[in-house]
Every structure is written in C-alpha cells, then in structure tokens.
C-alpha cells in the first residue's frame, strides 16, 4: 500500500493484522466472518419484528358471540334497550369528527364503554376496515364508496327497529342515490366543493361563477383539485350537464374546456391550505371545510358555491358484517340521529348534518352562513358525485390522463 495514509488508517490496519495473526486467519476467512456477522446483524431486527407481529391475535378471534347482523336479526327486542346488552363499542374515525359530549352521553345512557381509533386518509380507513370491518363496530365511509362496500359484503344491513330516530332525517336524505332507503348506512355530514379566493389578491373583486377559475388575469395563480371526479364535476356543471354523466360527447366538451384552462393553472393539488396560505394561489377549487383552516392565516379569505351549481359530498355512518358489537353499534347510530347529538357534532365540525330536527340546536353562526347552510333553492342545485360504473369511470380517467399528460 502507498504511504499517503493518515494516522487513523494505519492503526486500524495494525489492529486487523494483529487479529488475523492471533487467530491464524487468512484474509479470505476474515472476510467471510465479517460477512456472516454483518448479515446476521441486519436480519435480526426483521426476524424480531416478524415474530412479534405473528403474536398479535387475529381480529375475528376476539369477536363476541353475537351473530352478524347481515342476516335478519332475531335477537333484537322492539323497544330500544337501555342499558345495551353489549358493553363495548369500537369506533374508527377521523380526528375531531365526533363531539366528546355525544360520546359521553351515549356511554352514560347505555352503559357502554366507547373506544375511538383514528385514521387520516380514506385509503387508511378502508385498509383498516378490510373486508368485514375488522375490530371496528362503527366507521364513516364516504358515500361514494358505499355501493362498492355493499357489493363486497363489508357493510351490514341496518335494523330499522333499533333506529327510532331515523325520522329526523331531512326528506332529501331519505333515499340517497348511493344507498336506496338507507338500508345499510345513515348519512352523517355533508359538505360542498366550490371556489375559494383571497379578495386582496383579486383587487377587491367578488366572483360568483366558477368561470372565474378560467380568468386569464389570474394566470399561474389558479389551482384545481387533484381529483378527477371533482374537476370534471365542476366543469360539467358549468357546461350545464350532470356531474355524473356518461355521455362521451359531454365529457369531450368538458375535456376541451379543461385543456383551455391548463396553461393558466399553477398546480393540481389537494393541499389547498398550503398553496393558498403560501400566496402562490389567489383563487382555487377547494373543499368547503378547508376555508376555515385558510382563514386562520388569511382572515378575509372568501368561499362561494358557484352560481351554476356545485358539487356536494357526504359521508355516512355504518356498521360492518364482522363487527364484534352489532347491537351497540346500531344504538350508537340511532344516538347520532338524535336532534341534539347531531347538532353537537355540527357545532364541532362546521358541516351540516342531514338532520332536519337538529336545526333548532345548531349554533346560529353556522345556520346563518350561506356556504355551510345554503338556502333550499341552492341546495337543490347541488349535485352529489356518485360511484360510477367501471366502464364510465374509465371514460373519465382516460380523459383525465390526456389532460394531465
């Protein structure tokens, strides 16, 4: 070896040579030893993790003996039982999506212990629920995903005899398109998708039409959601078509309009809060609830439902075919339908629920806000995005790919 070494390397070499001489190792044997130790050290944590994971009990094994409620329930008494025959309830939920007082009043009334677990994206929720709900009795699938879950047998049928409060639902929620007759699920909250803008950046203008997102004056300061169904929905409604259309000509029209918009768009992003507060985006396609978070940084931030009509979304509360506590679950769903409980949730989340009777208990500030609680004539113009057939969805997606590529 050459002599350009510094001190540390020479010491290491000496130590290695001493090691080899003491044990009468050849260089080859030394290398083999190092390889064995190295790979064992690398594999050890993996093997340890595998053995502890295998020790976790399978969810089904801990289920109670109650029969799955997808069959016609034979064990349910006609009046609502107080206290409940089951003493535990497992909820899987978004964070801050259920008022504490609702849970506490349920626990007190039915003597049930409620445990809540959380997720942060819909993909996470469906992964945790799996094919039969796993360990969870209650969760909140988005309405668009409900038909698929019904077809796969994940969601359990509801026992209407336990749901005495279902009469509280507003008439427009009695027969939603994704779950006729509310057979498997009950609506929980609904929201709108519309347009948000920073009035200071728009020079004091107050647009009311979604065409403002095509305004060349805001070029490179416009954002659209990175969600094909929302983007096409907004565009189709602007063109006067249904947001769930399967007509290829109408879809082509929407694609042409979106292609016109593309040079003006700064980003297609679901991080609406980040892009708005950074000042990069002045006007954007956002979900209604995001505006509260944006208003923390930009107090004058404004939001409107386009005058052409907008998209509304909703989620549901449901119980599942493998849930360990089906009766407690349905009692909880009934509890959520109570007027005061529904109002308590709305006051926390700032979404309207489907509960007509709850309106008298809701915070007046929320009731007065036309973007959360619009007048009936505007509500009638809102369209819900439905779960599309595979073939129709492919029509949308191939155009979305053409737009984005």
């Amino acid at each position: 070896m050459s002599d350009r070494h510094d001190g540390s390397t020479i010491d290491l070499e000496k130590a290695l040579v001493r090691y080899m001489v003491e044990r009468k190792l050849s260089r080859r044997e030394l290398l083999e030893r190092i390889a064995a130790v190295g790979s064992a050290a690398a594999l050890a944590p993996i093997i340890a993790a595998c053995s502890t994971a295998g020790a976790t009990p399978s969810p089904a094994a801990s289920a109670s003996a109650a029969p799955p409620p997808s069959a016609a329930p034979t064990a349910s008494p006609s009046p609502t039982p107080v206290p409940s025959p089951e003493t535990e309830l497992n909820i899987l939920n978004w964070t801050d999506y259920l008022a504490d007082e609702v849970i506490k009043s349920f626990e007190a009334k039915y003597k049930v212990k409620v445990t809540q677990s959380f997720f942060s994206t819909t993909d996470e929720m469906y992964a945790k629920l799996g094919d039969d709900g796993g360990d969870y009795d209650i969760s909140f699938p988005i309405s668009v995903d409900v038909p698929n879950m019904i077809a796969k047998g994940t969601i359990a049928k509801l026992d209407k005899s336990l749901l005495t409060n279902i009469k509280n639902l507003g008439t427009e929620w009695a027969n939603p398109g994704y779950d006729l007759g509310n057979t498997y699920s009950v609506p929980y909250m609904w929201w709108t998708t519309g347009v948000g803008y920073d009035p200071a950046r728009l020079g004091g203008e107050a647009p009311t039409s979604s065409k403002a997102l095509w305004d060349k004056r805001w070029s490179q300061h416009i954002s659209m959601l990175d969600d094909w169904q929302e983007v096409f929905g907004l565009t189709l409604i602007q063109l006067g078509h249904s947001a769930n259309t399967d007509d290829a000509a109408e879809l082509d029209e929407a694609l042409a309009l979106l292609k016109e918009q593309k040079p003006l768009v700064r980003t297609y992003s679901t991080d609406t809060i980040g892009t708005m507060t950074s000042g990069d985006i002045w006007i954007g396609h956002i979900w209604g609830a995001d505006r509260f978070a944006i208003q923390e940084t930009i107090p004058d931030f404004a939001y409107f439902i386009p005058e052409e009509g907008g998209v509304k979304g909703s989620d549901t509360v449901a119980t599942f075919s493998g849930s360990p506590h089906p009766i407690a679950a349905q009692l909880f769903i009934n509890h959520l339908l109570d007027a005061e409980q529904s109002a308590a949730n709305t006051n926390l989340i700032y979404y309207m629920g489907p509960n007509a009777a709850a309106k008298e208990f809701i915070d007046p500030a929320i009731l007065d806000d036309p973007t959360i609680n619009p007048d009936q004539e505007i509500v009638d113009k809102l369209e819900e995005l439905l779960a599309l057939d595979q073939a129709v969805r492919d029509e949308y997606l191939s155009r979305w790919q053409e737009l984005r590529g």
Partner: protein
Amino acid sequence: MALLLPGVGWLVLFFVVPLAFIFIVSLGSRDVLDRVSLASPSLDNYFKAFDPVFLPTFLNSIRYAAITTVLSLAIGYPIAYWISRYGGRHKVLLIILVMLPFWTSYLIRTYSWMILLRDNGVVNSILQAVGLTHEPIILMNTDVSVILGMTYGFLPFAILPLFVSIDRLDANLVAAGRDLYASGRQAFRHVTLPLTMPGIIAAALLTFIPALGDFVTPDLLGGPQTTTIAKNIQELFLAGRDWPYGAALGFVLMIVTLGGTLLALRTLRREVIGAD
C-alpha cells in the same frame, strides 16, 4: 457456501418475491368490483401499456432523471475530489456532513424547498429586498423547482461512490503524470478521469435509476406540465383501481430502464475504459 444464505435469502425474500408478485398481478385483470382476478391470465396489459398517451410523461421522467444525473455528477465530483484530496484527517467527518441530510425525512426536505421557492418565500423575498426584482418570480411548480429538488435529494447518492473511487486513486500515478510534463488539466483528463470512471458510472446509475421513478418530488414541487410516468402509474392504482394495468406499466418502466442502463454500461465500458 452456507454463509451466502443470509444475503441470498434477503435478496430472494425482499426483492425477487415482491417482483414475482407484481408480475403475477400484471398478468391478471380487474373484475367488476375492482379486485385483481387471475381467472384468465394474459399479456394484454403489456400491450395496453405501450399506449402513446404515456409517451409525454415518460419523456418527462427521462428528461428530469437525465438532467438530475448530469447536475449531480457535475456538482458531486468536485466536492468528492476536494474532500478526498484536501480533507486530511477530517475526511470522514466531511463525508458524514454530506450524508447528514439523509437522516431527515425526504418529504421534509422537499417541503423546505417549497418554503424557499414559493412566491412569498425566502428566495423571492431576498431578491425583492435587495432590489433585483419588484415582483415575485414564479419558481414553484415549474421545471426549475422539480430539478432543484431532485438534484438536492440525489446529490448524496452521487457523492458517495465518487468519493470512494477518487479516494482509492493512487496519488503517485498523478504525480508520475506530472513528472512526465503533463499539465494539471492533462493529468486530470488522462490519469484521474479514466481511473475514477467506475465511480462515475456507479454514481450515474445510483442517481439516474431512482430519479426515473421519483414520484414525490415532481408531485409536490411540480406543476401541470411536469407530470411523470410514476404519477400515471399511481393514478392507475388509486384512481383507476386497475392494479394489473398499473403493475404492467411499472414492469415495462423497469425493463426499459434496465435495458437502457445495461446498454449504456456496455458502451461506456468499451469506449472509455477499454480504449484506454
């Protein structure tokens, strides 16, 4: 021979098996409920994967990966050279300092680029404060931000193999070249560069291949014009719920990358090292 078992076992379990899974899925098809069905396996998805709609995004991916690789080599080589030649006792410390950003999450490092580059971010604020510009320059959501973010992320991948290769170089060979009346530049070109070529090739591969599949950086830092093939594949899985098609497209990307890389390797070896 038994000592090979851990290494081979690792490769098989964590590399070959998942790859086999993806290949099997790519032969299947999507049923009505969006589940993978292997009822009639076929290579149809592979023919579909050569759809021309993917060409622009594929070219985007190649373009970003290539520019990132060239920039990483151009920036990384001088750094590695400097640390090796002049680092002295602090060589190891300096290399650790280069690697240190790796310890932070890649996502957080990408977000910090957003803070730097956005319209009222650090760069624009400084430019306006100094008086060079009066309005914010649009840096975010452009090719520039994507390439900056990717080069920054992959620079350590390039520096390390370059450093190892340069460090192994015997200084006496360069000295011998100088003794034979070569100028500094000629010595570099005829002695150092060819001898460190294995390191350069390794650095190029280690940068180009992951950059080709990089999904996060173009998605976060890029705009509508910077869509990559990785984003297309992700959308096929999540929005399209067509796992077999996405798997096939991913496999095609992998094979094209592998083929291109092997071809480039063979050409480089023959031309640069073989000729010398």
